[in-house]
C-alpha cells in the first residue's frame, strides 16, 4: 500500500513537472489559446477590456494581436471623439474579429474606402447587449453617423422577448436590471452549484484547455507543426468543421409554432425594429443589420445532414424576411460571399471569417451603405 502511495505521488509530481515544462519552455504561448478579451463593465455587464494588447492564438488557424483603445473599442484609434463621429458598427465575434489583425477587420477596411468607422462589437454580444452599449454611448454624449449591427447566425438569433427592458426606462435602471430577480438569481446559482464539477468529457476538456499547457499543446499546439497537422487531418484523428454540428438543429427544422427557434427569429427581428426606432428617435440616423451566415450556410454541401427536413438556409431566409417585414434595412452577406472567388471563407478549424473574407465583406458593406442607407464615403 505504501509503495502504491509512493508511486501515485511520484506520478503526480511527474505530471506537475511536465506541465511546468510545457508552460515555461515548450508551449509558453498556451495562454493565448483562451485569453478572454472581455471583462465586467459597470454599465454593460460584459465588454471588451480597455487598452488591450493581447495575442490570440489558434494553431493552424490564426495568430494575431488584438488591440483595444481606452474605451475597449477594437483597434488602436486613440481619438475617441473622431472615431465615434462616424458609422458605428457593432455585433459579436464576427465583427470584433479576434482572428484577424486590427487592420484586417471589415470595419477597419471600410476606412480605406473613405468611411469613418468605429468597431463597437464585443464577443458574445447580441442585439440587447448592443442596445445597452448604444444607450451608454448616447449617455456619454457621442453621436454616430449611422448604426449598423452584425448578427451572426446562429448565436446572434436568441429569444429577446424578455429583453425589452434594455430599451425602456432610464439607462441606470436598464443596466441594473439583470433580467432576473433576486429569487431566480439565487435559484439559478443553486442550480449551477449542482453543475460546478465537470460531469462530461466535454466539461473536462473545457477545464483542461484553460488550465493545462500540456493538454493545450496536445490538442492544438502541436498543430503548429504542418506535418502533424496534415497527418492528423488525413488520418481522421482531427475532425474538420464539416463534422461538427455547431448549431441548435431547431433552427434548421420547419419554423412552425411548435418550434422554439421560431420565437428566437421573430423576437430578434422585433427587437431589431425597436432598436432601429430608438436609434432614429435618439440621433435620427440610419440603422441597419448585417447578417453573417454560419459555416453550414456557406458550405451546405459539406454539411452531411441525415434528416432531409433539416434545411441550413432556413434561419437565414426567415430572419432576412422578418427583418424586411419589420422595415429594418438588412444585408445578407451570404450571396456575396458565395459569389466571391475566395478559396476558403473561414479558417480551417474555426468558422469565423478569415482576413480575405473580411476584405470582401468590407467592399460589400461599403456598397450597401451607399445604395441602401444612402451613406456616402
Amino acid at each position, binding site marked *: 500500500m505504501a509503495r502504491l502511495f509512493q508511486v501515485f505521488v511520484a506520478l503526480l509530481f511527474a505530471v506537475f513537472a511536465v506541465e511546468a515544462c510545457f508552460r515555461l519552455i515548450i508551449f509558453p504561448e498556451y*495562454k493565448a489559446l483562451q485569453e478572454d478579451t472581455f471583462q465586467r463593465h459597470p454599465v454593460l455587464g460584459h465588454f471588451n477590456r480597455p487598452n488591450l494588447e493581447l495575442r490570440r492564438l489558434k494553431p493552424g488557424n490564426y495568430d494575431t494581436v488584438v488591440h483595444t483603445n481606452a474605451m475597449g473599442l477594437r483597434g488602436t484609434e486613440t481619438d475617441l471623439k473622431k472615431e465615434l463621429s462616424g458609422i458605428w458598427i457593432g455585433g459579436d465575434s464576427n465583427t470584433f474579429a479576434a482572428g484577424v489583425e486590427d487592420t484586417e477587420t471589415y470595419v477597419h477596411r471600410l476606412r480605406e474606402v473613405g468611411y469613418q468607422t468605429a468597431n463597437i462589437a464585443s464577443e458574445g454580444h447580441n442585439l440587447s447587449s448592443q442596445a445597452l452599449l448604444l444607450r451608454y454611448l448616447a449617455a456619454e454624449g457621442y453621436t454616430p453617423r449611422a448604426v449598423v449591427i452584425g448578427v451572426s447566425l446562429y448565436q446572434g438569433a436568441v429569444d429577446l422577448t424578455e429583453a425589452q427592458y434594455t430599451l425602456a426606462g432610464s439607462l441606470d435602471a436598464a443596466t441594473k436590471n439583470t433580467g432576473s430577480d*433576486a429569487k431566480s438569481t*439565487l435559484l439559478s*446559482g443553486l442550480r449551477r452549484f449542482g453543475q460546478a464539477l465537470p460531469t462530461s468529457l466535454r466539461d473536462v476538456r473545457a477545464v483542461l484547455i484553460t488550465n493545462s*499547457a500540456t493538454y493545450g499543446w496536445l490538442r492544438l499546439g502541436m498543430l503548429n507543426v504542418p506535418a502533424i497537422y496534415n497527418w492528423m487531418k488525413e488520418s481522421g484523428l482531427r475532425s474538420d468543421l464539416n463534422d461538427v454540428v455547431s448549431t441548435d438543429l431547431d433552427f434548421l427544422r420547419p419554423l412552425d409554432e411548435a418550434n422554439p427557434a421560431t420565437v428566437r427569429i421573430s423576437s430578434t427581428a422585433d427587437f431589431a425594429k425597436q432598436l432601429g426606432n430608438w436609434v432614429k428617435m435618439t440621433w435620427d440616423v440610419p440603422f441597419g443589420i448585417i447578417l453573417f451566415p454560419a459555416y453550414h450556410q456557406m458550405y451546405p454541401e459539406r454539411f452531411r445532414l441525415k434528416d432531409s427536413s433539416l434545411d441550413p438556409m432556413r434561419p437565414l431566409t426567415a430572419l432576412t424576411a422578418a427583418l424586411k417585414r419589420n422595415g429594418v434595412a438588412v444585408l445578407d452577406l451570404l450571396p456575396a460571399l458565395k459569389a466571391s472567388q475566395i478559396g476558403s471563407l473561414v479558417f480551417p478549424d474555426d468558422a469565423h471569417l478569415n482576413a480575405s473574407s473580411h476584405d470582401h465583406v468590407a467592399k460589400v458593406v461599403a456598397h450597401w451603405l451607399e445604395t441602401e442607407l444612402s451613406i456616402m464615403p
Partner: protein
Amino acid sequence: MIANFSDISVPSLGFFVLGLALVLLAWSRYRENFAPALLAASLIMVASWLSPMDAVVLAGFIFPPYLAVHVLWGRQEKAPSVFIGVVVVWEVLLFIVLRRYEWVGWIDWLDHPVSIIGLSYMLFRIIHLVVEAPSLGAYRISLAAYLSYVLAFWTLISGPIQRYDDFARGLSSVGRPEPDELLSSSHRMVNGLIKAFLIAPVFLKASDIGLVTRDDADVIDFAIVFYAYPIYLYLNFSGYTDVVIALTRLCGVNTLPENFNRPYLARNIQDFWKRWHMSFGVWITSYIFTPLTKWLLTRGDIKHHGPLTALSVMVTFLIVGAWHGATTNFLVFGLLHGAAVMAAALYGLGLKKALGKTGRNAFEAKPWVRGLAVVLCFHYVCATLALIPNQISDIVGALGKFLA
C-alpha cells in the same frame, strides 16, 4: 509574477502542489528541511503575485523591520520603547502609502502600480514581532525564520494572524499527524473548499444590491439580497480558514489559531468580534485597544475614565474599519460597530443598575432574551456588512427605490 503561472491562491493548482509537497515533506524522514521548504513555498507564492516593482516595494516594507527585530531580540531589560514606536509608526505610514487609502489625499502624488497581496497581514505580523521582540528571546530568529513567518505560505493572503512563538512551536512539531487528526483535517479541508469555493459563490451573485431596484422586487427579493452577502462572506472566509488550518495540521503544525466561532450566534457586537476573525480581534485588542486605553487612562482624570474608554473603543473600531478597506465606507462600517459596542456596554450597565449583577445575569440567561439579542445582533451585522461591497449612495438609492 511568474510567466504563464496564475497567481497562487487557495483554489489554484499551484497552492495544491506546494501544499502537497509540504505535507509529504513533513511526513518524510527529511522533515528537518521543512522550515527552508516552507520559506521556498512562501517565496514562490509571493513571486506568483508580484511584478518586479511590487517585489522591490515589498522588500522595502519587510526588510528594515527585520533589522529592528534583530537588534531588539531578547533584550528585555534594555528595549528602547521610542525605537520600537518609531519602527511601528514608520511601517504603518508605509502601509498607508502602499494601500492607497482614498481618504488620505496627501498621497495622491504617488501614483504607482503596487498592489501587494496580504500586506495588512504582513503588517500585523511585523508589528507583533517588533513589539514583542524583547520578550521572545527564548525562540530563535534569523532572516530566513523572519521571512517564513512574515510571508508564511498558508497565511499569506488572509491569515489567520499567528503569534511568532506559536509559529516557532508549530514548526518544531512538524511530522505525520495521528490517524484521527489526519482524517479530521482532511475532512475539514474538503469542507472548507466546498464552503468557500462552491457554496459561497452561489450567494455572491444574489447579493447584488441592484436586484432590489427592479420594479417587481418584493420583500423576499429584499431578504435574499440582505442576507446573501453575510452568508457569502462567512462561507468564503471561514472556508478559506478551514483549508489553511487543515493544511497546517496535515503537516503536524497545530498552532495556527482558529478564526471563527459561530459568529452569527453572537449576542452583541462585542461578542461578535470575539467570534468573527478572532485572530484579528486578539491582535487589535493586544496592540491597539489595550495600549491605547492604558495610555488614555493614565493621562486622564478618573472621572473621565468612561468617556476615555469610549474614545478608545471608537478609535479602535475606526482602525478596524480602515483595515478592512481603503474607502470611506469602511470607516463608516468601523464607526457603526464601535457605536454598537458602546451601546451594548451602556445597555449592560443600565441593566446592572436596574437589576443588580445577579439579576442582570439571570435576565440575560433567559432563552427569549438571548434569542432576541442574537437576532438583533445578526441583523445589525448584516446591515453594516452591506457597506463592504456597495457604495453608500448605491445603498441609499436602492433602498429609496425599493421603499417608494
